[in-house]
Each structure stands twice: as C-alpha cells, then as structure tokens.
C-alpha cells in the first residue's frame, strides 16, 4: 500500500487529481493556499491563480459547463467575494462536477473574521462535506465530484485551519484511465438564468436538497461508532477528533456530509440516549437543525461559539477539567509577526506616521504597518476596502482633514477588488491619495504570482499588468512611481500628493525581498559605527528586526546575518553611523 503523510490541503489536491479533474482555479488565502500550489505537481490538471475568488469560481463554472470536472478553492471570506455566481450556480447545476473548497479559520489564526461558512451551504442550498483528517480530505474530494454529477449540483468541501495544515497518513489511489472529453453543448433552459428559466430551476433546487437528505441517511460517510452506549455525540470535521480524545467511551455519529443533514439517521441515533451532545466549532449549525427536529441536545450551552476547540478546551467545557495555568508565560515579552528586514513597505509606513496621515488600510503584509513602532494604519476591513473607505471618509470631512486621508493597498489586493474603488474615486471626484505598494507578488499568503507579477502559477512568464497605465486609464491624472528605499523621495512625494486636492496615486516599485528572481543584485549588509552613533534611537522608529538596541553600550546594533542592505536605516541616521560592511 502506498502510504504517505499529507496535509489536508495536499490531500485535497491529490483527490482532485484522482477524481480526474481537468481544471483547478483559486485566489490564495490562508489556510487554503497550498491546495493550488500542490496542483502544479499534476500536469494533467490545468491549474491557475485568478485575480479574485469571483473570477476563480466563474472560471471553474465555465470549465464545468464545458463538461470537465473543476476544483475551485478559497479561504472562508473568499466565498463572500464569490457568492454572486455561487448562488445562481446552484440553480443551473453542473455538467462536469464542480467542487468548491471553503477553508475556514476558527480562532482567526490569519483572518479578519471568524465566519462559519457552513451557513453558506444552507443559504445557497448546496451539499457540503467536511473531512476530519487528510484521508477524509482525499476521499471526500473524490466523493464530492461524484455527488456533484449524480445530483447535478455544485458541492462544497469545507476545511478548517487544523484540517488544511495538519498532516496525517493517507493511502493514495490512481487517476481514472478514461476521462470524458469536454465539448460545447447548448442547454439554455439550464444555463441561461433569466427569470423564466430560473423560476423553474428553483423547484429543482428544493427537490434536490430533499433527495440528498434522504440519500445521506444510508451512506457510509455518515456513520455511527459504537462506544459504551451511555452518551451520544453528533459531530463532524476536526471536532470529531477531539471527541474521540475526550469522550473515548461515547457513541459517536460522525457526519461526513453536514448539509443537508441525514434527518432520519439522526432521529434513530438520538432516540437511544438521554444525554446527547452536539460538538461543533463556531456556530450552532448542526445543533439548531437538530433542535428544530424536536430533539433535545447539549451544544452551545456548554461549548463556546468563539474560537476553535482543542482537546483541553472541550474537556473543560464538558467536565470542568482545569486547563494548565499559563499566567506565568503571559509575562514573557510577546513575539508578534513583523515585516521582514528590507521589506519595501517599512519606510513608507514610517513616513505615513511622520506625515500624521489617516491611513485607510487594506490586507496584506503591509497591514503589519499597524504594529508599533510604525503605527500607521487606522482602518482594515476586507480586501480592497481601503480605497472605498478613503473615498467615503473624505466625503464627510473638512478640506483640511481630507488632505490627511491616504489609502494603502498592495498590488495583488489592488487587482483583486481595489481597482473598482479607484474608478469610483475618479468618477465621483474624491480627493484622497492612494498608495499602491507594488512588491510584485502576493506576499502575505506566501508569495503567490498575480497578474502584476509577470508569472503564472506554474511559473511561466505572463503579461505584467502595467499599474501606472491602468490607473491613468480609469482617469487618474497624477500617477507617480517611486522607489520606497529612497526615503527623501518618499517623504517629498507623499507630502506633495497629500496636499493635492485631486485623486492621486503613488506606486512604490520595490519587489519583495523574499523573491529571488527580483533580488539578483548583491547588497552588502550594514553595521553601526559606535564611534558615530549617539544613541538617539531614530533608527529604531523603523522597527526593523535586524536593528536592536544594545543596553550595555546604549547604542544600536545590526544583526549582519539578517540585514539585507536596503539602507533605509542609513537614511534615518543624522550622524552617519550606518556603514557598509566591505565585501
């Protein structure tokens, strides 16, 4: 047997391959990103990054209309962006199978909210599978493709951070020998959702969910695991694993398909116990449906809605078992994430802080500009929000305050959903300043390509969107590209454009320091000449991880191993203390 260790995300990629899919499309987002990154191993599948989740889903839908199996993946908030096509896709149904992965993030390890996307299954009336480990992730991916075609519906596969990023043992299978050849096939009654057609399809949607519910009662992915017969637990996904740790003797109904619920199976199971728990993270999604069936269960009365579960947390909520006392460790200095040494965003935020700008922020590595000592971000809502937020707040401010408003947005985020906001800014005469932090990559999620990076997912050269021309094309008259390693120029440009009572865009053009192809030039590390350093601490305002204050000498020091020689610190020093180490 071919046993390997795979993460949930690797297993989903493998399952997609084994299901005979021909297309995979996504926009990156933690914890979903590695699914598409792993698809590049499977050359039989055409895999690509889309500029945003809506486009990713629309591409997947197109492929499925052509008769191919298609996988689309995204993080939980990505489904908000893709919701528009999704809610009508459930009406059209599919031709080739379509599986949409939503990777949720209980505990907000890397997200701006903790939404429970199981609610999307109910809202969009679409079946949803939830794996409990990597083997499930592989099996359910294949299963989801089959169910998609059997019931003529798109199918959700829901993962969470602990499934996507945990590795467990998986047995691999093979890709089918025969894969149907895609073709053009017209079917307007099914594919053209004008009111007359869609009205009829709505009946099909409702009927289909009822059929799936009944079918799910007899399928092995919804299974009962016998314990000692005293306590019953209904659970799914990663919570199942915690139940097995904490309640080893309980009878467990493990649900593989969590929407629609197998009602008869649940009724039969529930009838056997006086004590019945529903153990699930986040919303009372299963619990409310079981309660609505008139069955008494213990769920959110004990288990919190906020945050993720762990074995210890579950034991505490169920039995009052104390968690270890961590109060002593809370006194240790915290270690929050920071921009890398040489990050091109750093100097820009130092200058935004100096200019006392009101910074309408966005999501990316640059959101770390919020952290002290840079402390230059005042809002952060969702991807692309910075520009619209800046427009809106400018509308209600005095002329003097309007000048302080600056939107900052990364290249990937700008192309994701920022460009629409910029169109609005020009169209409706806003006066705010926009900074596009173009580091030529989608850095936050681990450096994925995007339409402005010049490469595709499989590392082939691609046309690189010309951001300057794009801004001009929507009507921005003042577009200036600057090197953010040049602090004097950054400061001057920022001052001039903030003062301008018109829309202006500043594009910073230094690539991310972690992308080798964009950092071929050798830059020597710097050191601090302690004879020149006066200990004024001006350089510490950068918060660069390579610069540290030395208590003994009361001067700054540079860690030459991590310094990449960007020389931004040199420009903050009034005493010429930062010098190059000779090669």
């Amino acid at each position: 047997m071919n046993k390997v260790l795979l993460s949930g995300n690797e297993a989903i990629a493998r399952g997609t391959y084994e299901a005979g899919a021909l297309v995979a499309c996504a926009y990156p987002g933690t914890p979903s990103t590695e699914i598409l990154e792993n698809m590049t191993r499977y050359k039989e599948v055409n895999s690509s990054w889309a500029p945003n989740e809506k486009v990713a889903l629309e591409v997947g839908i197109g492929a499925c209309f052509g008769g191919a199996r298609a996988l689309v993946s995204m993080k939980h908030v990505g489904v908000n962006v893709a919701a528009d096509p999704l809610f009508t896709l459930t009406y059209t149904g599919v031709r080739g199978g379509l599986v949409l992965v939503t990777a949720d993030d209980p505990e907000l390890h890397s997200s701006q909210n903790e939404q429970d996307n199981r609610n999307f299954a109910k809202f969009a009336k679409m079946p949803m599978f939830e794996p409990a480990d990597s083997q499930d992730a592989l099996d359910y991916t294949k299963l989801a493709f089959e169910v998609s075609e059997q019931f003529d519906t798109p199918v959700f596969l829901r993962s969470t951070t602990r499934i996507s990023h945990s590795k467990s043992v998986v047995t691999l299978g093979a890709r089918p020998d025969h894969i149907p050849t895609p073709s053009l096939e017209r079917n307007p009654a099914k594919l053209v959702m004008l009111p007359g057609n869609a009205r009829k399809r709505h009946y099909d949607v409702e009927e289909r969910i009822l059929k799936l519910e009944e079918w799910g009662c007899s399928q092995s992915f919804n299974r009962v695991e016998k314990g000692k017969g005293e306590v019953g637990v209904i659970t799914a996904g990663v919570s199942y694993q915690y139940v097995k740790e904490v309640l080893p003797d309980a009878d467990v109904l493990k649900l593989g398909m969590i929407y629609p619920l197998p009602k008869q199976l649940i009724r039969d199971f529930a009838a056997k116990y006086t004590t019945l728990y529903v153990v699930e993270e986040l919303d009372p999604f299963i619990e409310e449906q079981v309660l609505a069936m008139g069955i008494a269960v213990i769920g959110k009365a004990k288990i919190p809605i906020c945050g993720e579960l762990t074995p210890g947390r579950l034991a505490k909520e169920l039995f009052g078992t104390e968690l270890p006392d961590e109060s002593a460790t809370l006194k240790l200095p915290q270690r929050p994430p920071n921009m890398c040494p040489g990050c091109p965003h750093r100097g820009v935020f130092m200058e935004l802080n100096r200019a006392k700008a009101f910074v309408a922020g966005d999501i990316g590595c640059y959101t770390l500009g919020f952290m002290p000592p840079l402390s230059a971000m005042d809002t952060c809502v969702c991807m692309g929000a910075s520009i619209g937020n800046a427009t809106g707040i400018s509308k209600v401010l005095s002329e003097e305050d309007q000048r302080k408003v600056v939107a900052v947005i990364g290249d990937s985020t700008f192309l994701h959903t920022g460009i629409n906001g910029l169109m609005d800014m020009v169209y409706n005469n806003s006066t705010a300043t926009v900074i596009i932090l173009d580091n030529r990559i989608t850095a936050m999620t681990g450096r994925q390509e995007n339409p402005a990076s010049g490469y595709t997912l499989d590392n082939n050269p691609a046309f690189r969107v010309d951001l300057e021309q794009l801004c001009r094309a929507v009507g921005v008259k003042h577009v200036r590209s600057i090197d953010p390693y040049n602090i004097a120029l950054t400061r001057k440009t920022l001052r001039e454009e903030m003062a301008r009572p018109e829309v202006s865009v500043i594009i910073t053009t230094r690539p991310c320091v972690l992308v080798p192809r964009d950092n071929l030039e050798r830059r020597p590390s710097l050191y601090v000449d302690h004879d020149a350093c006066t200990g004024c601490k001006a350089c510490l305002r950068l918060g660069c991880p390579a610069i540290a204050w030395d208590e003994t000498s009361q001067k700054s020091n540079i860690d030459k191993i991590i310094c990449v020689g960007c020389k931004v610190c040199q420009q903050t020093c009034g005493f010429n203390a930062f010098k190059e180490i000779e090669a």
Partner: protein
Amino acid sequence: MKTTNILIAGVGGQGILLASEVLSEVCLMAGLDVKKNEIHGMSQRGGSVVSHVRYGEKVYSSIIPEGEVDIIFSFELMETCRYLPLLRKNGRVVVNDWKIAPPSVALGKQSYPENLIATIAQQFPLTTVVDGLTLALETGNAKTVNSVLLGALSNILDFDHEMWLTALKKMVPEKLVDINLQAFAAGRGING
C-alpha cells in the same frame, strides 16, 4: 502503546517546519500512526511558531491535549518557556541555547528575561541544553542548526539511527544533505 507528544517551538524562519517534517517522516517509516500540526501564515513573519507532532498506534487529535506534552523540543530559549505549562510532570526539554530578541526587546522597551535555562531545568530536571549554533558552525553552515538539534532529540527517542538518516536525505535539498548529516551526527554526539 501510548501516544507520544512532541511540541516543537521557536521563531519563524528557524527551520522548525523542516524539523517537524523529518521527525514525522521517521514515525511513518517506523510504521506508526502520526499526525502533525502547525500554523502557517502570519506567524511566519518572525513571530512565535509551534508545531505539534504526535505518534503511536492510533492518533486522533493533531493538537496535543494541554498538559500532555512529553517533550518540548525548542529552537529558542524564551519560546521554550512559553510552552512549559503544557509539558506533563517529569516531561523532557531539549533546548537550543539561543536568544532571539522580540521587537519590544530590540526597541529597548523590555529586557530579555534572564536565567531561563536555570528556570527550565529547575522545573524539569530532564533538560538537555544544546549549543546548536556552535555545533552547526563546525560543519561550516549556520543553517544546519535544525539538524544538530534533531540529532540531540534522536538520542532520547526510540527510532533506528538509519531511519533518521533516510528521512534527512529525503527531506533536505540534495546539495545540503552531506553537511546536514554531519550536523545531525554532531547533535547526536552530545550527551543527553
């Protein structure tokens, strides 16, 4: 067979993920059930990083139940202390004698806590301190610290020496295999 729980701690960029990959691969080779878990994303930007590895006959949760950690395997001193409450009584610690200043310390706002090794060893007598960097530099490459540390860890785990070597060869980039094997041997050579 009881499940063994190892918590690997350190700072983003130190090679913790590779170390946990190698360890998990060894468990798989030994024919055991194994799960590992870590958080990617924000934490990789120089923040605290932690990886859980669990192995045995059958492993359910990939998160180690709180208070049931058998071994803390740590790449940085202060990070070790962050997770001590999760370690079981008489648990073991393998710690790299290395300090990385967190931002508040680098900015001169807080001091790096003192006497950490003594604090750790007092609570947990089964503590092994490894001078990872010095041993790594003897191989000529500072980046082999994680292999040195794995060598030290291998002393207290019940896996064949050969399996470690096979796993390292499989997981490490080809041109770095030799120095990593050398680093592993150096770590294995120290006395637990």
